[in-house]
C-alpha cells in the first residue's frame, strides 16, 4: 500500500514535468498549428543558463529565476528567427523547421560547451527526503508537485480572467478571425511563445533538481518525445488534456518501470510509444479529448 502510494507520488512528480512541457507544446500548437520539436531545447537552454549561473557563484534561487527567464527569451527568439518566416507555410514545413532548430541548438551547446554531461550544483535540500504518514518523499518531488500546481493555477487564471487570456483562447479557436477582430498577432505570438518558454524553464528547474543537475546538449530530446506522447493522450489541441495527459503518462511510466518484470522493464518506452500509436488509430481525439481538433 505504502509502496503503491509512493509510486503514485513518484508518478505525479514525473508527470508534472511532462505536463508543463506538454502544456507549452499545446499552447503553441493550438494557436499556430506548429508542433514545436525544438520545445525540448528550451529546457536545455535554461539548464545551461543555470549551469553558468552556479559556476560563477550566483545563488540557487536567483539562478533558477534567471534560467526560467532565459527560456522565455529563447522561446521568443526562436519564434522570431525561425518560425515567423514559415508562419504561413504548411504544417510539415513548420515541423521540419522546428526539427532543424532543435538540431542547431543541440549542436551549439556541443560545439561551444561540450557534448559531455556537466553538473549544475543543486542545493542540499533537493536531495533530502521527508517522511509523511509513513511514506518517504524526496523533497524535490514534493516541490515539483507544488510548483507545477501553482504554475497551472496561474496559467488558468491568466487564460480565464485576463484580456490577454481571452485573446489567446480566441486565437486558439481561429487565429485569422482573432486577428481581424483586433488581436495584435505579433504581440500575441510573442506572448504565447514566452508563456511556453516560461513553462519549459520551470520544468528545467524541476528536472535539474530531480537528476542532481545533469546538463547535456541532448537533454531536451527525451523529454520532448514524452511531451508528444502526453499531448496525444490528452487529445491534441486541448490544454487541459495536455496537462492531464502528462500526469497520466508520468504515472504510467513509473508504474511500468516499477511493476514490469526486470527482464522487460527496459521496454517501458517502447510500450508507451506503442500506446500512442494505438491511441491515434482508435481514438484520434485522445483518451481525454472529446472532439478531434486537428486542422486540415
Amino acid at each position, binding site marked *: 500500500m505504502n509502496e503503491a502510494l509512493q509510486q503514485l507520488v513518484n508518478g505525479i512528480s514525473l508527470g508534472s514535468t511532462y505536463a508543463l512541457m506538454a502544456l507549452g507544446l499545446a499552447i503553441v500548437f493550438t494557436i499556430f498549428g506548429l508542433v514545436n520539436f525544438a520545445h525540448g531545447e528550451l529546457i536545455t537552454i535554461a539548464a545551461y543558463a543555470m549551469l553558468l549561473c552556479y559556476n560563477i557563484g550566483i545563488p540557487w534561487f536567483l539562478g533558477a529565476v534567471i534560467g526560467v527567464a532565459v527560456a522565455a527569451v529563447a522561446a521568443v527568439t526562436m519564434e522570431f528567427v525561425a518560425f515567423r518566416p514559415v508562419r504561413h507555410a504548411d*504544417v510539415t514545413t513548420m515541423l*521540419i523547421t522546428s*526539427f532543424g532548430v532543435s538540431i542547431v541548438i543541440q*549542436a551549439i551547446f556541443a560545439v561551444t560547451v561540450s557534448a559531455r554531461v556537466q553538473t549544475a550544483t543543486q542545493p542540499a535540500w533537493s536531495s533530502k527526503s521527508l517522511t509523511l504518514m509513513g511514506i518517504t518523499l524526496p523533497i524535490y518531488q514534493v516541490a515539483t508537485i507544488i510548483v507545477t500546481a501553482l504554475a497551472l493555477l496561474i496559467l488558468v487564471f491568466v487564460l480565464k480572467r485576463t484580456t490577454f487570456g481571452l485573446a489567446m483562447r480566441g486565437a486558439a479557436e481561429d487565429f485569422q478571425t482573432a486577428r481581424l477582430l483586433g488581436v495584435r498577432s505579433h504581440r500575441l505570438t510573442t506572448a504565447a511563445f514566452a508563456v511556453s518558454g516560461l513553462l519549459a524553464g520551470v520544468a528545467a528547474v524541476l528536472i535539474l533538481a530531480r537528476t542532481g543537475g545533469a546538463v547535456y546538449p541532448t537533454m531536451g530530446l527525451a523529454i520532448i518525445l514524452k511531451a508528444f506522447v502526453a499531448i496525444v493522450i490528452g487529445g491534441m489541441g486541448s490544454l487541459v488534456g495536455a496537462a492531464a495527459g502528462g500526469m497520466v503518462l508520468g504515472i504510467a511510466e513509473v508504474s511500468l518501470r516499477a511493476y514490469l518484470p526486470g527482464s522487460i522493464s527496459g521496454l517501458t518506452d517502447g510500450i508507451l*510509444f506503442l500506446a500512442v500509436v494505438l491511441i491515434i488509430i482508435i481514438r484520434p481525439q485522445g483518451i481525454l479529448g472529446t472532439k478531434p481538433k486537428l486542422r486540415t
Partner: protein
Amino acid sequence: MNQRTWLTALRAGIIRTTLLAVPVILLALAYSSFRGGSGERLAITAIINVVIVVSIGIFVGNSGVESFGHIGFAAVGAYSVALLTTSPQVKKSRIPDAPFGLTQTQVSVLVGVVLSLIIVAVLGAVVGLVVMRLSGISSTIVTLALLVVVVNLVSNWVDLTGGAEAFYGIPTVLTLPMAVIAMATVLFVASVFRSSPWGLLLQAAREDELAAVTMGVNVGLLRWFAFVLSAVGAGMGGVLFALLLGAITPNDFYLTLTFLTIAMLVLGGKRSTTGAVIGVIVITIGNEIFRWIGDGPNIVSFTLPAVPGLTTLFLGITIVVVMIVRPAGIMGDREVDDFTLRWFHRSTEDAQGPAVASEAPTSRLVAADLVKHFDGVKAVDGVSLEVGPGEIVGLIGPNGAGKTTLLNLLSGVLIPDHGSVCIDSTPLPQPPYRVARSGLARTFQNIRLFGSLNVSENVQVTTIVAKKANSQGIDPADLLSAFSLNKISQRKARTLAYGDQRRLEIARAAAIGSRFVLLDEPVAGMNEVESLALRETIHNLNALGGAGILVVDHDLSFILGICERIYVLDAGRIIAMGSPDEIVVNTAVIDAYIGTSINHQDNALQDPNMHEQSTTTNGEDTR
C-alpha cells in the same frame, strides 16, 4: 501532351536512373582513387544514403505524408541480415540463447539479404495499414513513435540482438559495385513509380485528398503500396550498412541517421528523385568539409582547434535555411530529365484515337427520401430527386437550404441518415472512391484542383481511374480541346485564372466518362461574360458524353437559362420542381428564394432553427 502510361514511366525511369547514377558513380570513383580505402568507404556510405533517402522519398514525396520512422526499417533490415549471415561461432559468444535457433543458423549473404527484405516488407505492410490512414501531425507522431518502439525493442531484446552494445562479426562483403547496383535499382523503382499512372494518382491525393477520392482514386491503397515500397528501400539501406560496417548498434539507426536523411531529403526536394540524390551529395560534401574543420586541420603552419559537433550544426542550419528560403527544396517538383534531353519526351498524342462515348447512356440517378442531420439540425430532410440520361437539372435554394449537403450525399462524401441514392436501382457503392468509378463525378464550390499538377495531369488522374473502372473514358486530349484548355495543358493548375480553373474542374469530372456530373456552384464569383462562357462549357459537356448533369447554384438567371428541369430546396426540403417557366411563377419559390414576402419573415421568426441551420450548413460548405 505527355500522357502518363507505364511505358512512359519505364522510359523516364531508365533515362533518370542513368542521368543520376552516372555522376554519382563518377564522384564515387574519383573520391575513392583520391583518398584510397577511406575514400571508398565514404563513397559507399553516401551511396547507401542515396538508397535510403530516395526510398523515403517514394512515400513522402508522392503521398505528401511525412514519415520520421523509415530509419526503423533500416534498423530491422540491418539486424535481420546480421542475425542471418553472421557465423555461428561469433553468435555463440555474442547471443548464445537467441530464439528461433538463430544462434546455429547461418545462410549465405544473398539469401540473407532476400530474407531480410521480406521481413522488412511484411513489417512495412503491417505498419502501412496504420500510416495510410493518417496525415498531417498524426503521421509524424505515429512514425516517430514507431521508430522509438523499434529501437527500444532492438536495444532491449538482448537474447536476440545482443542489446544496446555492438553486434559484430557480420560479413563485410559490400563492395562499391554492389552498392551501385542497389542504388540503381532503387533509383529506377522510385523514378518509374513517380512517373507512373499510380504515382500520378497518389500525387493527386497529395494535392487534394477529397477531390482525389471523389474522382475515384483509392488513396488508402496507393499510400499503402508506396509505403511498403519505400519501407523495403529503407530496409535495403540498413542491410547495406550492416554488410559495409560489420558491426552495428541500435543507436546507428536512430535519431542521428533520421536527422541526416531528413536534412538530405528536404535540401534536395522531397518530391524529386533527382532532389534526393542532390541532397545526399551536397550534405555529404558539406559534412566532410565541416568534419575536416572540426578535427582541427593544419593550414599552412597553423593548427586550428578541434571543434566536435560542427557537422551537426551544419545539418541543422541547412534544414532551417532550406525551410525558410525554399521549402520545396533545391529541385522542387522537377527532375533531371526535365532539363536535359527534352527531345526524349516526344508526344504520344498520335497513339490515342478519339474515344468519345459511343452509345447514348440510359442511366437514371435516383435519390429517395434522403435525410441528413448535423447535431439535430436537419440539413437535408426527406429529399427525393431524379436526374435522367442526358438531362441538365438545376438545384437552387437560398444559403443554408442544404444544397451542398445534398450534393455531398449524392456524391457519397456523406452517408445519409436515412434514404438512398441509386444509379439504375443500384445503390451508390462505398467507400466514396467507388462512387466515381460507378460513373458519378462532381466539382466543388471552392475549387479543388490538384494544384501542383499541370492541366493535362489533372485530367489524366480521372482518365486513369476510368480505365481501372473499365468504363469508357474520354480521351484527355479531346476533352482539353472541347473545354479550350489544350493551349494551357502544361501549366500548373494552381497558376490558372479563375474561369479556367472552373472549366478544368468540370473537364476533370467529365474525363471519367461519367454518366452523371454534379456541379457545385460553378458560376460563383463569375461575371456575366464568364458565366455565359461556362454555360457553353456545360452544354459541351452534355454533348460530349451525354452525361446527366445536376447544377447547383444561387444564380437564378444562370440556372433558368441552362436547365431543363429545376428543383428548389429550402430548409432541407424540396419545395418545388418544374420547368424554368413554372419555377419563375411559383409563389413558394418566390417566398423562399427571393425572400421578400412578409409571410416568409414570419416563418423565420417562428423557426429558431433556421438561422442556426444556415450557419451550420455554411460551415459544411467550406470544409
